[in-house]
């Protein structure tokens, strides 16, 4: 049978240490989960940026197409002015202008949405950081309370030894 002694006390102390270590590992796990969730969110946001870049590319391509169209129209006008028969009509111009206007409006609106979304993501990330900070605050408070308790226990343990000097 194992005897009651320093090893026993050490085992109990180690058990207490391990219990708190388990709690610490839980915190670390939660921290990792937190990082994972935020990185996944950042990735999601990055993929949305890809879509926006593709969209911008398409818009730029459309604008280049229009510049080409406008160049061709000038040429046709010059041809018609030279008496050639091939040329655009006024309705075509009207129709094309309307389309360009709508596009411009759509692009402007989309840009606004993108900006809002980015700000919301930023706000959300700050909220997450606040929650994480709260976890650290709670843990620090718990550690402070625990320190008071452990200090009291140590003082209590030291009293008999001190008393024995005067007893």
């Amino acid at each position, binding site marked *: 049978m194992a*005897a009651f002694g*320093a090893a026993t006390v050490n085992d109990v102390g180690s058990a207490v240490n391990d219990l*708190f270590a388990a709690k610490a590992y839980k915190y670390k796990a*939660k921290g990792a989960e937190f990082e994972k*969730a935020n990185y996944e969110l*950042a990735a999601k946001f990055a993929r*949305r940026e890809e879509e926006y870049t593709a969209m911008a590319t398409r818009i730029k391509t459309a604008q280049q197409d229009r510049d080409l169209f406008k160049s061709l129209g000038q040429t046709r006008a010059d041809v018609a002015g030279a008496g050639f028969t091939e040329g655009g009509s006024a309705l075509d111009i009207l129709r094309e202008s309307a389309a360009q206007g709508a596009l411009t409006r759509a692009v402007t609106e989309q840009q606004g949405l993108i900006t809002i979304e980015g700000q919301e993501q930023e706000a959300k990330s700050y909220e997450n950081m606040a929650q994480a900070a709260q976890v650290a605050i709670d843990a620090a408070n718990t550690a402070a309370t625990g320190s008071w308790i*452990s200090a009291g226990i140590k003082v209590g343990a030291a009293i008999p030894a001190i008393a024995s000097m005067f007893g």
Partner: protein
Amino acid sequence: MPGNIRQFETPALDIRPTESGVQATAAAARRGGAFFNQAAEDMSGLGNRIAGAVRDVGQQVVDYAQHREISTGAAEFAKMHARLTDEWNNTVKNADPNDTSVASKFNDKVLQPTLDKFSGAFLTEGGQRWAEQHVDSLRNHMFERATADMSTMAGDAAAANVRKASNAWSNTARNDPSSVPFLLKNAESSVNAIVSSSPGLTPAAASKVRNEVLQRAQEEIVKAGALGAIEKSGDPEKAAASFAARWPQYVNAQEIDQFAKAAKSFKRMNDAEGRAARQQADYEAKNDFNKKINDLETSTMPQKAGDPPQLPGDYWQRLRDLATHPGAALEPGRLRTMVSQGEAITERLNKPEPMARPSHAETMKLLSQIRATDEGRLTSTAPIYDAYQGGKLTNGDFNFLVKEFTNFRTPEGAALAQDRGEFFKRYAGTIDAGLDEMGVHSALGQQQMYAAEMDARRQEEVLRKQGKDPHEVYDPRSPNFFGRPDNIMKYHVSLQDALRARKDGNLTGPGKSVTGIEVIDQPAGAKPFVPPNTWQWSPSRQQYRDPSGKIYDVSGKPVK
């Protein structure tokens, strides 16, 4: 462009993706993880601190528990040590010294179970460590003690066995001094065998037995042989010197010289011993003879004081037997006296009782001789028997004198007789005013002295029967003191009475009254009255009493 047709000029369109959200989220991931790590470190640190506190408190508890266990254990250990020591001492005390398994049995049945039980009672590490150290120490101590004791026991047993044998060897050597060389070799081989066959002996103990005990045994053999040779030799010094020369390692010259001197006185002591033995035998024979003679003499005494002495049927046969007794030659006078006494008693049986007063006077005379301290002192009862045979003593007075003579030779009787003698010497003048300067009583006074002494003796007997000390009769502090004035005056004889009695020469003439008792003449023509043997005589009342209780006067006439 024809005319003024205007078309919409599209500005340079571009969508710019914002990175702020992505970067903020990524930064939150990194920063948030740091917060959790910080919390984890806090928990880990708290765990360390609480674990440290638990260790501190636990160590205090452990220290206290260990201290308590060790304190209690120290007292219990001391008791256990004392108990085990007592048990071992008892075991050794009652053990067979030749039994080599005593220590191992004690270890298996007593020591080890006790130590195990003691160790098992400790629960703390420090307590167990302390207990184990002490148990080991005690076990080692008990082992060493047991080994030493067993060795001592084995040594004692071996020495005792050698001593037993040594006594026999010494006896043999003394009876047969020529056997000494053989006995010396035999002693050596026997001691070696005893030592080698004893497994419990330590080398030191074995060496001690082999050297000291053997040396002592051999010395005793040689000395016994020397003594035997000296005792048997006509020249003790020469015999002693031969032993000293032959075995100087066992006996020295001084001892031999002492033996020789002892031998010289040996013969003288033997002679003295023989003489002492003979004298002792004579003494014992004489004592036994006297005892048997006394018993025979006592057997003649009657049950009642006034009855005549009678010879038992085997009186003469017992005397014949005593004539061959070894002590008879040493006490020839006593045998002759007993023959004379037998004859006196036989002769007196056929004679009448003498008159009381002359008998009393004779009694007082013989009594004074019994008590005398000079050469006139009676050394045997022969004068008493002579007086009895000559008709000078009544049966009662004779019995009284014989008894007094016997009693006077016992320590108790002598002490009482001394008190009594002192008393009557002191009161002689008070009782008898006619006592002269030479200490001779008047005739009347002597009668009264007799009466007083007889009454005093009766009072002694009364006290003795009551379990009291008869010496009280003569002790002035006692209520039973005989010398009380009212009592002593009953026996008083005035000077006038003494002179008148001396002048008349007849104490018992008509009209005479002695101390209130009227004296009358015997009727004319009457023969002296001889009472039957069964009657009792009262000297103080001067009356007889028969077995039925009826009273008669001195002439045998019934008293109304």
